[in-house]
């Protein structure tokens, strides 16, 4: 005997929206934990410098990238005029900027050891001798472009707060567009920083 679709699903079965919500939260929490676990692999590294400086800067940089990418992705619906995310965008851009600053500060700490002499195991001196393009192309790009995230984040946070809800009005369309492009640029520089940083760490540890 054939059953219609409605008859085959019991009334206790959760609604599609509830399943979708649990799945989104579940996957988000698991993905975040999985990605943020990555820098803790440094704790098993034979170099004591990499064990603690690598873990601290790795965690700071990965967290900064995850938050900047989340903010950058929300810039797309904001650009399309989704009003309900505006309050979240203000706080998220602020936290993204703050965490980007922490990533930069921990980067300064790691950069000290990176510049140690070649006899003492310094990565920079070793790369210049053995793989100069890693220093002059990857590292130069890494150390400068990650700094761009700070002024971009501060500018976007300032604009999103000062223009209030009126940023979505027609006369402010170009202000909204420029701010969203700024957030996307912040996401791009954060991702570029993470990829080049991981690349350098893969060639020579601290």
């Amino acid at each position, binding site marked *: 005997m054939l059953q219609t679709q409605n008859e085959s699903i019991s009334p206790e079965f959760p609604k599609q929206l509830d399943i979708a919500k649990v799945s989104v939260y579940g996957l988000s929490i698991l993905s975040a934990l999985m990605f943020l676990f990555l820098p803790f692999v440094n704790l098993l590294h034979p170099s004591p410098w990499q064990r603690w400086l690598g873990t601290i800067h790795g965690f700071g940089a990965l967290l900064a990238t995850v938050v900047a990418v989340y903010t950058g992705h929300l810039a797309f619906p904001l650009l399309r005029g989704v009003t309900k995310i505006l*309050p979240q965008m203000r706080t998220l851009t602020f936290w993204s900027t703050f965490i980007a600053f922490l990533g930069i500060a921990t980067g300064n700490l790691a950069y*000290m050891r990176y510049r140690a002499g070649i006899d003492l195991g310094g990565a920079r001196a070793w790369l210049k001798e053995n793989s100069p393009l890693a220093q002059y192309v990857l590292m130069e790009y890494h150390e400068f472009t990650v700094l761009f995230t700070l*002024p971009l984040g501060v500018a976007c946070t300032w604009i999103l707060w000062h223009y209030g*809800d009126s940023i979505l009005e027609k006369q402010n369309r170009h202000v909204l567009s420029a701010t969203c492009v700024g957030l996307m640029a912040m996401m791009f520089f954060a991702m570029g920083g993470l990829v080049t940083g991981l690349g350098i760490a893969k060639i020579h540890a601290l």
Partner: protein
Amino acid sequence: MTRQLSRQPQKENEPVYGRIWAQFKKFPNGLAEGSQKPLTVSGPAAAALISAGIGCFTMMFTHHLSDTSKAREKIVWAIGSWIPGSRNPSELWGNIGSYTGKETMLLVGWLVSWPILYFLWKKKNIKAKTMFFWFFALFIAATAMSWHPLFPYLPLM
């Protein structure tokens, strides 16, 4: 035929992690609400974004000056010596070196140009074309300037 799946959010149905996330999204509350006296012209926004680009371009210009002369590198290093770790006697620990001067020049270029542009444009509407042109020009130039193969006078080997 399609059915409308959206519905009004019901707080009592929200799982605990959903409620925590909803609270976190509004923290700090004063920032989430936005200004009660919003700006009405585009000049201040243009000043904020273009000054960020000026700061980044200033840093890259300083990098090119510093990397092509030992004497200029010394000056740049001296400018950045206020940052912790700029100079460090321990060779094992290393130091940040002239990079601190370049970071300082980013801050100087950015935080000096911002109030100047803000003062000049605070009551003006800046055209979208002007805002986007300078934003892209400065950030693309700054990004390209970090890439040594484009500049024969910068070291590659």
